[in-house]
């Protein structure tokens, strides 16, 4: 009996350890491959350099940073209000039968492969933007719309959970003061669930900034600082995705270095989300 317990303990330990070491290995690998080129080009030149021309040995990722930031911001501006409103609707207004239908549907949304989103965007969103707003259609706007849809499940479910986790006494207390349902939501429920909602938004942003496949297909991928939301851009992720196949030498290192920047951004976002949710307790 004792032996059996010990054996299973070590099996679990090994499995846990191997997944953590895989993560550590990847991190180390990225850092080893990426840091030398940053050192060579200089961190300022790398991050703020305007020109990305691997054939000339120019490695400036600033346009890509702008690309990632604008597309992600666009996704947040479009997706967060819709997601939060959806969550409020589901928790506060929807009859139980409707929310029972809605919830699995939203989970399904999270399960659709990103390439399908990209393909759909290419077929419908891009032509729509080209016809109604002008420009090439392949644009920040197209990427933002696709990402907004993709982050909805994250934003909705985390917001919903944080609203449902509130003690029902808050709601009763507010209603007992003669506040209307809407006043209760706006002035008691939402402020009380604030930290959960902020975490939902940050995790959604983290998901958006890391997304690659869907945005490769709709962004146009031009390496230039955009002038309007109808311009094509390239993000940090798509830069790696597009060029990894043929890059070698310092070019390949520069792509790993792009990965480091992305890695840090996402880590900071996740840590912020965790910090905010933990501070609550």
């Amino acid at each position, binding site marked *: 009996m004792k032996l059996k317990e010990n054996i299973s303990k070590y099996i679990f330990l090994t499995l846990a350890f191997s997944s953590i070491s895989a993560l550590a290995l990847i991190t180390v690998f990225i850092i080893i491959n990426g840091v030398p080129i940053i050192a060579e080009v200089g961190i300022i030149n790398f991050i703020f350099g305007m020109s990305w021309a691997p054939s000339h040995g120019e490695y400036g990722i600033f346009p890509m940073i702008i690309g990632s930031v604008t597309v992600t911001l666009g996704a947040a501006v479009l997706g967060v209000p819709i997601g939060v409103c959806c969550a409020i609707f589901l928790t506060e207004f929807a009859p139980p039968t409707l929310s029972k239908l809605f919830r699995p549907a939203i989970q399904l949304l999270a399960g659709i492969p990103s390439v399908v989103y990209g393909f759909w965007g290419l077929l419908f969103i891009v032509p729509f933007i080209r016809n109604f707003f002008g420009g090439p259609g392949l644009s920040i706007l197209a990427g933002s719309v696709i990402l907004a849809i993709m982050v909805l499940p994250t934003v909705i479910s985390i917001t919903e959970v944080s609203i449902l986790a509130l003690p029902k*006494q808050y709601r*009763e*207390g*507010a*209603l*007992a*003061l*003669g506040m209307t349902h809407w006043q209760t939501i706006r002035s008691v429920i939402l*402020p009380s669930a604030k930290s959960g909602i902020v975490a939902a938004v940050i995790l959604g942003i983290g998901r958006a900034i890391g997304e690659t496949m869907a945005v490769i297909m709709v962004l146009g991928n031009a390496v230039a600082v955009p002038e309007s939301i109808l311009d094509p851009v390239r993000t940090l992720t798509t830069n790696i995705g597009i060029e990894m196949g043929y890059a070698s030498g310092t070019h390949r290192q520069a792509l790993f270095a792009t990965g480091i920047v992305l890695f840090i951004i996402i880590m900071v976002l996740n840590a912020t989300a965790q910090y905010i949710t933990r501070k609550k307790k």
Partner: protein
Amino acid sequence: MSENPTETQGSIKLSTKSVNLYYGNHHALGDITFDIPSCAITAIIGPSGCGKSTLLRLFNRMNDLIPSVTVTGDVFLNDVPIYGKDMDVVSLRQKIGMVFQKPNVFPMSIYENVAIGPKHHGIRSKRELMEIAERCLKQASLWDEVKDMLSKPGLGLALGQQQRLCIARALAVEPEVLLMDESCSALDPQSTMKIEDLMQELAKKYTIIIVTHNMEQAARVSHMSAFMMIDENKIGRLHEYSDTHQMFINPKDKLTEDYITGRFG
């Protein structure tokens, strides 16, 4: 300070006429008829599950939040039927405030907790809201303890203070009636004493209805007592309703006597 115009000692504030309440098929209140005097404390007592909370929540229509509930019969506030078609539940709840069993201070500052009610009922001026907060915190005898920390979170207060904050919050919307459902049961004896004193003070201006499991508390603070009991069909009935002194000195029958002397319940 606002005097409620209709408050005259001894007049009837609330009354129920043949009220029945069902949770789905479960008949929880059976044929409840009684009158609650204004500017007095009425205690609802009885064993667990007999429908005290249900009866209390009838008065501010909190039971409306439970979809399966149906109510028959009439409840009157100042002779106006509160289950009537054109009754505005929101304004009813402004007239009938409620303090819950566990203090349910909102996760915001002490000041905001008190000001939230009047703010939503149309008072915009910061100065006016501050005056209301001060007056209500004084009425709830909490002012001296919190006057230097009004912007601190209400949840940082001790439990007894939190409950008084909830009382202040309820008073801030200027109700005529205050419902208190076992509002001292989560508190230590000292905080309980404070709140009992407070109730007596408030009863000069407000009609107060309390639910309590504590017979001594009922005897100490209330003017009228309503003893509820479930009958053989598990329907909550009003078994005896009389002057508290009368009930505790000379109960109507053996059942009431056994309950208030603690022989069951």
